[in-house]
């Protein structure tokens, strides 16, 4: 059984082919990285998987079910969560409330129960307490206790990335899409993030799809790597194989006039 697979995916914006002929399969429990230069189509690929874009052709299969063409909230329901390259947090809520949004699909309080939250033993009161406890566990895991009650808009960049990761984890995903989780972080924050990503893979058993520019980190934590450029696949394989591939070197380092990298 394939856990997650993309077959022959293609999408174009106007005349521009952003992605073409993308096919890969991810096994459960893997860290699968997608690399490529800026504008290669990595984030577009994530947006297709997560339902923000509707692909023109091809299929996306998650746990034996086709998810291409579904809306993002339907896809989230299947057990797929993501973070964004340009942080997309709810700026006027505090850290706790942001992560609580990740519990949205697990909560049942509607308007009537919500308005009637009279006391801690009302339906909504009990549900709030239960899920806040769950969120507290995630806060502890990612060491966010200090900013628990702070508005996220005012937090440092690295911490905001952490909150985004926490919010995605609150969804209890089986597949987690991380779009440049380390971008803009200093080396200490990077180390922590790598540590957490490993933790999430090992202890929570979450499969991870990763976009990252930091080659050292990618080589460190990925089980397999897919390299793309101009919307097409260059190569796919183990880190050491991909690293040596001439096309990858060319895409990353450029080419001399005589064709030598």
């Amino acid at each position, binding site marked *: 059984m394939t856990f997650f697979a993309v077959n022959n995916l293609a999408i174009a914006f106007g005349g521009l082919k952003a992605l073409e002929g993308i096919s890969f399969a991810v096994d459960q429990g893997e860290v699968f990285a997608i690399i490529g230069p800026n504008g290669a189509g990595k984030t577009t690929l994530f947006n297709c998987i997560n339902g923000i874009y509707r692909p023109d052709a091809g299929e996306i299969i998650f746990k034996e079910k086709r998810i291409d063409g579904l809306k993002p*909230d339907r896809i989230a329901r299947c057990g797929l969560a993501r973070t964004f390259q340009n942080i997309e947090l709810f700026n006027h*809520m505090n850290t706790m409330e942001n992560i609580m949004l990740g519990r949205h699909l697990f909560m*049942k309080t509607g308007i009537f129960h919500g*308005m009637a939250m009279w006391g801690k033993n009302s339906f909504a*009161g009990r549900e*709030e307490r239960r899920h806040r406890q769950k969120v507290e566990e995630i806060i502890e895991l990612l060491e966010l206790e200090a900013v628990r009650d702070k508005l996220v808009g005012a937090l440092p960049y690295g911490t905001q990335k952490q909150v985004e990761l926490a919010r995605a984890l609150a969804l209890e995903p089986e597949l987690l899409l991380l779009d440049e989780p380390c971008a803009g972080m200093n080396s200490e924050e990077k180390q922590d993030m790598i540590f957490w990503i490993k933790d999430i893979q090992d202890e929570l058993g979450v499969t991870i799809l990763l976009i990252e520019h930091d080659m050292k980190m990618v080589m460190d934590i990925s089980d397999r790597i897919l390299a793309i450029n101009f919307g097409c696949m260059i190569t796919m394989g183990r880190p050491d194989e991909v690293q040596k591939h001439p096309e990858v070197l060319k895409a990353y380092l450029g080419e001399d006039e005589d064709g030598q990298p």
Partner: protein
Amino acid sequence: MDMKRDYYEDVQLFTSGVVLFWFVVLLSLIAVLPFVVKNYYIYVANFVAINVIVAIGLNILVGYTGQISLGHAGFFAIGAYGTILLMTKLHFPFLLALPAAALVAALFGFLLGLPALRLEGPYLAIATLGFGLTITQVIGRIELFGGRQGLHTPELIIGSWHLNSDRDFYCLLMPLTILLALGARNLIKTKVGRAFIAIRDADIAAETMGVNLVFYKTLAFAVSAFYAGIAGGLYAFVLRYIEPEIFTLMMSIMFLAMVVVGGLGSIFGAIAGAALLSWLDLQLRNILDMPYIGDWLEALSKNYFSITGVSNIQFIVFGFIMILIMLFEPLGLYGIWIRTKKYWRMWPF
């Protein structure tokens, strides 16, 4: 860290004894008011309370969900006409007719929410504006609705309680207002409210977290329209007579102004904004009766501002106050409140 912490602290109504104390003080003031002031001020209080209900509802839509509506007078009208018609034609008791009419308003709110899925900002404002204008036109044309002549309210009886005076009505209206305000506050603190705020702050991220945008955007419109409908039904009994001309575009704009002047995205702001603007609206009519300044203002108005020769200084003062509030505190009255609170916490440093 204290591990025995109860997570209910995050969402509970009274975050501290001080808050509870002031809430009790406020309730006591509301309770004794009818015994100590003149009848006219009871009428003013009723008028304010009704605007507070609309503003709280509109704030759920504009302040929390980030949508806009210039058509709330339409929902207000549906609530007012619906309540009277259900009582006179179908002989519903008041306490059933009011929520039923508000549910009709909520249904219209849901329908108006559908175009909101594709429209944003100014485009949505115009679509809702169209709705508000259409409702009054349609109502004015239908004989069942009293046409241009309008409708008189039936006698208001709940069980064996005959509500004849403004004072009686105050006793019905205030508990309802408090209940609706607390309900809105609870709603915002739980799942649905969080989804609303998430849509306002980052709709794509909200959708990615599993929030169904279609459902929650239309729900925000429906809840907001429900509040306006309830307020409309109550307003009919304050005026005792309604006609299509009451529910104008100006009324929709005033509702929006209350929410913005009070402070977007805050229940306190909605209450303060509605109270201030509706109070000013009534009180500024008396501005010319003020000693000394009154005559001077009247002369100023007639000589320099008025086209028709009728004094219009109250509108000018009204507009001036709104400009000043927005200029000095873009967060509205809520922002002023936050600053005052901070100042006193630090006092005397």
